[in-house]
């Protein structure tokens, strides 16, 4: 695992560590509209995800972040007027990996089999052998190499989340949706896994939902705050420097402070409405 204290020097070397997962398109979405119980969650929301970059999405609980992710992933039925286009004009189906807010590990499969679920489900023999090799390497990166044969019910919440992370990263999809991928982890493990994820996600178009402004400040090329009812996203913050940024660098901390300010403003607007 790369060290927590020196991620910025490692960044250049890290970019080439993994083969590029096919050209990652930019994604433009507009006219997003979702209703739950006749209440619009968002109404004409628009968002751009730049190609090969990580976009972070923050916002109060219940504002609709997960719903937006599901809409992009094609898991929510879109209403008329919704437009979701990739810059290469090809459909997104089959090009998205999705890490949900819950780990969704299958209780009857062990850690390694859960991590390689994609290849197993597609029944690709050669790909499965390859996926197993990469999964073992990644699982040892996340500190689970001695638990490969363990069943999920014998793991802690943070361990389960790490398996789900590996399962997501191993799918070589150019577009990745992640919903609070590090929520269950302790502070240090979280920083370490952010480094790992930043390395493996480099070059992919990523939308990452998080409640942690520091995480967004470290990982995001672009950072949005989503707020309001119906919800909208604000103009993005675009911090300089290559992710993963040093957690203790002044720039990162300034970004974190700015995000906290925006979140507090969003909460104040919510409270007034």
């Amino acid at each position, binding site marked *: 695992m790369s060290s927590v204290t020196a991620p910025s020097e490692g960044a250049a070397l890290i970019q080439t560590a993994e083969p590029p997962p096919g050209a990652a398109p930019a994604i433009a979405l507009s006219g997003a509209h979702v209703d739950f119980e006749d209440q619009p969650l968002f109404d004409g929301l628009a968002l751009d995800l730049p190609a090969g970059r990580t976009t972070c999405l923050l916002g109060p609980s219940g504002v609709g972040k997960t719903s937006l992710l*599901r809409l992009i*992933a*094609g*898991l929510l039925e879109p209403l008329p007027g919704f437009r979701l286009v990739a810059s290469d004009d090809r459909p997104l189906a*089959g090009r*998205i*990996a*999705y890490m*949900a807010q*819950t780990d*969704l590990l*299958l*209780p*009857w499969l062990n850690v390694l089999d859960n991590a390689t*679920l*994609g290849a*197993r*489900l*597609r*029944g690709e023999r050669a790909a499965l052998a390859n996926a197993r090799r990469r999964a073992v390497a990644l699982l040892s990166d996340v500190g689970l190499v001695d638990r490969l044969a363990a*069943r*999920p*019910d014998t793991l802690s919440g943070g361990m389960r989340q790490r398996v789900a992370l590996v399962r997501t990263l191993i*799918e070589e999809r150019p577009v990745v949706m992640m919903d609070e991928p590090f929520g269950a982890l302790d502070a240090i493990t979280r920083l370490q896994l952010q480094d790992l994820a930043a390395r493996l996600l480099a070059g992919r178009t990523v939308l990452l939902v998080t409640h942690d402004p520091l995480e967004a400040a470290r990982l995001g090329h672009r950072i949005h705050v989503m707020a309001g009812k119906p919800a909208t996203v604000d103009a993005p913050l675009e911090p300089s420097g290559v992710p993963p940024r040093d957690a203790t660098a002044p720039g990162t901390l300034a970004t974190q402070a700015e995000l906290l300010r925006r979140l507090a403003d969003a909460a104040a607007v919510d409270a007034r409405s």
Partner: protein
Amino acid sequence: MTGRRLVRPVLIAAGLLALWEAAVWLNSIPHYILPPPSLVVLEFIDRGDLLAEHALWTTIEIALGLVAGVSLGSAVALLMARFAALRAWGVPLVVVSQAVPVFAIAPLLVLWLGYGIASKIAMAVLVIFFPVASAFLDGLRRVDPGWLDLARLMGASPAAVLFQIRLPAALPAFASGVRVAAAVAPIGAVIGEWVGASAGLGYLMMQQLARGQTALAFAALVVLAAIGVALYFLVDALLRRAMPWIPQQS
């Protein structure tokens, strides 16, 4: 620990048997109406080989019926889970089929399939099929939608979703269906034997009751109950071993 837990049921059983024995002797109830337990025990000693012979026959009927019924029930549940059209037509059909009392079909089965083992197995299959098919189908349909979303985004085929997600997820429901099946399988076999047979514990009971040999009929009943209990625990143990990820309550 196990020994201690057994003390109470054993005491209760012994007490009830003693009461029964006393009631028969004190009221001078004729033994062809209600034999005392001591006579039933004597039948085990005198006619043990006869009981064993018929017990073997009934056990074979139950085992084959259970295998056939569980297989048929599972296959139908899988097909209905996979094909919505089949479900739309099949579910009402299966439910209506359950409205026909098994007792009423038994003579027909004997008429069609003869006095041999086939009609008994068909009978057992009839009572086993429904609990297995309905519990399993329920389990196949009631899967965490998050798993299905995940599988879909991973590009899984419908068959892969069925066999790698729905099927293992439905195993606990399948197991409860099979447990019910194990409990009712002896009923099916014995009804078949009552209607027409030349062997088996149900046949033995009918034959001995007609001759006033009630104690032997009781002995057959005890063996039948023992087979039922043994079958249930065997099936339960097998199912638990097959599903180590399911939390077990003691």
